[in-house]
């Protein structure tokens, strides 16, 4: 470790917070106060043919500027939106048009857009557009999709978008031969990312330079830029995309381009006006993206000790009306379901099915919550079957630290082998057991039961592939003021990147955090990037920025060595000064090094005189050497061989009300291993937020579609995102830091961890409290009440049987 390393690993306060907490944030809707606004006419039907669109009633609305329907689109704009991540097993990939062409496939699908002087008038006009429909039978829910009595897309048989199988060993034979066998049916319902800020786009077309500048609330500025350029037929160089402050993403904003991200720039160019679209809450519910709905059938064979001999999982994934994001979610379920375990044989098979509901794309956790639910419910069932402690059954199946790197023999979501790089699962479990008081639990529970209370302890383990490729880059520049400007192309949605990335650079360069400015998600500053998803920002951009800072440091030392007439190896950088080790006073400020790095003809200020032609340089050499560049900067990219795998284990203690069936959380414990902690405070914040979403998915949130495909709870009144009062007041956290060998800092991602075991750990705890197994999540008090009655009736029936 280098001298002066002091920021990495420190729980320093986030540098972005004073600004955000005092109302200084600039979100999309804060921008473009002069812009005219766009509103979208959306389908009120889940499945219908469009017979006619009559805009005549809207034409005389005051302030109306334009109305567009599919017929107004041409060229690439009239093509279906891209299938972003193709996969060989997709047999019928369908994506929507930016504006519906002939048919709508979910309530909320965009049919027409209206641009008017403001949003009020735009909505007035949109309301007056008359669309005639021929209603088609809707397919809602996985059961209907699987039965395929009705089809979402006429030409997609069985509603099957894709069918995929992976296996290692002969699971069926292993299960058949196993001394014990169990089958389980497990289901998880739809939920959604639900960031507080919805989607939003602002575009300005500069008629003089024929250039487009777009601000969008996205998780991928470069992706949106490329998409807009392609759709509008512009050179990449003529399009700039800037990400302002983003009020949360959680996955939904990685999808791109959204129809509005294309339509707003299109209208801005056509009208020569700044145009803005700010999505409202209802629109977000019915026209962005959801996730999670899956049905799973698990077959497992195990020995007397609970070792997994064969595991076979079949599941059905509800991908909604279209498939823009490919199979990422079900592929993650199918691979990450394995968690820390090593079944002797494994087979997984899934079908991704179309339904007449909102599209499905990754939401924080991205298929893992379902997979972990399936696996962990199975572990609890094995423990119950054999009468073995639940933690013990898990421990017996763990991959051991000495088996790392561990190759599962499967292909992961990035198209690369599923190889765990690191982790110490037994140590993680030991820490969790100690934290929650696992061994004291039976006594506590017995005591509580004796006084009429129902309490339960749940446990769930997961492994999370983080930091998927292909790459990210970083740029570090030292200005002549000594300030350091850092940029990376991926975007920020509140994760604290400004702080975490500055911590990395501060250590690499020996400068104070306050002298570092970090810019993300601005294609003017860094045009090559992928995006912020899959818990990848710290791993990918963190690594790239570290490498870029190292390159900058090398140049600093080279230039300073010349100036100080010392060898580069003898120099160190402390507090923004480059100095000769052990020679006090023999030093030069970073800013001066920056001046010297850029040979000048003109002195623009006192300091810059030092770099002018009569001051420096060997007259026999070119001022800038052949293999050098002017300026003091470093740029580098990080592109890993494959993902790095974080892991964690959660425990929760719940109490269920014997009368009202309400579920109270008494304790929530987390042990988490994301390798090197750049900033423990930020990691804990990520865990807190994740746990809140885990609680949400387990106990509160669901998408309540009726049979006709209407979303009945498309507002925060009925979509029960938990308030602070529903989230555990205290989340007890312990860390383990097994470094990743795959990147320069040993980092693994931490962004999604908190949410992943949510459904599993609550199902485990409620089952423990109630004495029967919970097999479907989320669970409401009403559902728990009904389950109690059902199990009481079953028990009574059994009791009366001879």
């Amino acid at each position, binding site marked *: 470790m280098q001298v002066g390393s002091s920021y990495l690993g420190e729980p320093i306060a986030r540098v972005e917070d004073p600004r955000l907490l005092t109302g200084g944030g600039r979100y999309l809707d804060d921008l473009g106060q002069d812009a005219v606004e766009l509103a979208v006419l959306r389908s009120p039907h889940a499945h219908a043919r469009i017979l006619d669109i009559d805009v005549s009633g809207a034409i005389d609305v005051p302030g109306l500027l334009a109305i567009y329907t599919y017929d107004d689109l041409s060229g690439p704009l009239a093509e279906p939106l891209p299938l972003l991540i193709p996969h060989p097993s997709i047999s019928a990939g369908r994506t929507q048009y930016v504006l519906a062409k002939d048919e709508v496939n979910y309530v909320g699908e965009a049919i027409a857009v209206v641009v008017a002087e403001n949003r009020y008038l735009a909505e*007035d006009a949109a*309301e007056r557009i008359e669309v005639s429909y021929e209603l088609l039978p809707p397919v809602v829910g996985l059961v209907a999709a699987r039965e395929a009595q009705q089809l979402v897309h006429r030409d997609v048989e069985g509603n099957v978008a894709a069918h995929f199988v992976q296996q290692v060993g002969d699971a069926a034979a292993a299960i058949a031969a196993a001394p014990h066998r169990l089958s389980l049916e497990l289901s998880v319902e739809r939920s959604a990312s639900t960031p507080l800020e919805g989607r939003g786009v602002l575009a300005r077309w500069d008629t003089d330079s024929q250039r487009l500048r777009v601000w969008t609330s996205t998780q991928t500025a470069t992706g949106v830029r490329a998409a807009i350029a392609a759709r509008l037929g512009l050179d990449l160089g003529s399009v700039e995309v800037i990400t302002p402050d983003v009020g949360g993403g959680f996955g939904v904003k990685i999808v791109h381009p959204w129809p509005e991200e294309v339509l707003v720039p299109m209208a801005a160019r056509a009208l020569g006006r700044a145009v803005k679209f700010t999505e409202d809450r209802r629109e977000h519910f019915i026209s962005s993206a959801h996730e999670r709905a899956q049905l799973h059938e698990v077959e497992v064979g195990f020995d007397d000790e609970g070792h997994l001999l064969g595991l076979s999982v079949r599941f059905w994934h509800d991908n909604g009306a279209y498939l823009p994001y490919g199979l990422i979610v079900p592929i993650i379920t199918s691979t990450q379901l394995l968690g820390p375990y090593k079944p002797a044989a494994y087979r997984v098979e899934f079908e991704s099915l179309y339904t007449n509901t909102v599209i499905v794309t990754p939401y924080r956790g991205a298929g893992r919550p379902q997979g972990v639910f399936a696996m962990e419910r199975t572990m609890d069932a094995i423990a119950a079957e054999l009468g073995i402690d639940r933690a013990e059954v898990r421990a017996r199946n763990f991959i051991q630290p000495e088996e790392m790197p561990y190759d599962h023999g499967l292909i992961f979501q990035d198209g690369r082998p599923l190889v765990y790089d690191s982790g110490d699962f037994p140590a993680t479990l030991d820490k969790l057991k100690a934290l929650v008081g696992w061994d004291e639990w039976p006594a506590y529970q017995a005591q509580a039961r004796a006084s009429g209370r129902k309490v339960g302890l749940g446990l769930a383990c997961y492994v999370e592939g983080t930091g998927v490729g292909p790459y990210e880059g970083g740029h570090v520049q030292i200005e002549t003021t000594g300030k350091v400007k850092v940029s990376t192309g991926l975007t920020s949605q509140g994760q604290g990147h400004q702080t975490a990335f500055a911590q990395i650079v501060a250590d690499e360069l020996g400068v104070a955090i306050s002298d570092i400015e970090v810019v993300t998600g601005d294609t003017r500053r860094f045009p090559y990037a992928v995006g912020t998803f899959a818990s990848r920002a710290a791993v990918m951009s963190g690594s790239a920025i570290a490498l870029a800072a190292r390159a900058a440091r090398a140049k600093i030392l080279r230039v300073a060595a010349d100036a100080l007439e010392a060898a580069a190896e003898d120099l160190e950088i402390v507090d923004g000064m480059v100095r000769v080790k052990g020679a006090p006073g023999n030093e030069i400020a970073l800013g001066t090094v920056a001046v010297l790095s850029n040979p000048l003809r003109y002195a623009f200020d006192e300091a810059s005189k030092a770099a002018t032609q009569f001051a420096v340089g060997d007259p026999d050499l070119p001022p800038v050497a052949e293999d050098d560049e002017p300026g003091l900067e470093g740029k580098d990219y990080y592109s890993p061989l494959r993902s790095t795998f974080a892991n964690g284990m959660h425990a929760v203690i719940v109490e269920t009300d014997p009368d*009202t069936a309400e579920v109270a959380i008494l304790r929530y414990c987390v042990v988490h291993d994301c390798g090197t902690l750049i900033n423990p405070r930020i990691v804990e914040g990520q865990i807190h937020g994740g746990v809140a979403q885990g609680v949400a998915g387990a106990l509160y949130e669901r998408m*309540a579609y009726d049979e006709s495909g209407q979303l009945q709870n498309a507002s925060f009144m009925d979509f029960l995102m938990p308030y602070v*009062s529903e989230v555990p007041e205290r989340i007890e956290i312990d860390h383990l830091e097994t470094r990743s060998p795959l990147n320069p800092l040993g980092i693994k991602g931490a962004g999604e961890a908190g949410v992943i075991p949510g459904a599993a750990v609550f199902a485990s705890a409620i089952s423990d409290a109630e004495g029967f197994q919970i097999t479907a999540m989320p669970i409401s008090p009403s559902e728990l009440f009904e389950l109690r009655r059902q199990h009481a009736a079953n028990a009574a029936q059994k009791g009366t049987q001879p």
Partner: protein
Amino acid sequence: MKPPAFDYSRPETLEEAVGLLAELSSGGKVLAGGQSLLPILSMRLAAPEHLVDINRIAELDTISAGPDGVRLGALARHAAVERDPAVRSTQPLIPAALRQVAHPTIRNRGTTLGSIVHADPSGEMPAVLALLGGSVTAVSARGRRTISAAEFFLGPLESALGPDEIAVEAYFPALAVRSGTAFAEVSRRHGDYAVCGVAALVSVDQERRITSARAGYLSIASTPLVLDLTEAVLGRRCADDLSAAGRLARQLVEPDADIHASADYRRDLAGVLSDRVITEAARAAAGSGPGD
């Protein structure tokens, strides 16, 4: 989610306001705290021509509590009523129920009378008014009239108030001697409209035996439902088993299912919560009489 255009007036006197509403016939709509009305406008579920904002009418900003009961003017905000000591001692059921109305920020702005006029069958205050046998006084250009709670609530979001009328006062009878009240509800999240809520009013005799037990229910029927549960617990004391109250309530309610609760779960909650509030109200009644 932007409302269609509407006209807006902010009269300074009640006279002006009712005059305006009379002129507008059915095109006018009273704006009080706006906590229910503005979301309705933004979602374009209603499109009144003209909003008559009553927030500047000083004479409506009153809270008074006397021996006969509590009187709330149209600008009495939930939060102010909840914290008023005279209200609390005159009719403790009012603050007990108000604490369950929405979240503090909404209670700061929303009016208690507004929530009664809004007549949401899931609202706490309509159920309280109905249980206590209170009334609403309305003023229009046609004159002034007082409508009993029993006649005020006509259906979900539908009251007996005419489009030209302004509700100027809600009246809640005071708590009688040897009587007690209690309130309980189950909601999915803190501050949400309840899945089921129950308010109770219990009276006892000098021997502290129950002489009357009534309960008001929210989120159970299309208007606030008041049940007389006296027969189930008549003559019992608060320390006795009062679960017959809940059993009777379970028989009498006919709730609907929605996305948050099955009908049977709601029915069971009505029973569970009836037991809880009848017991608590009986305890309060027993502790409140003279001679303690």
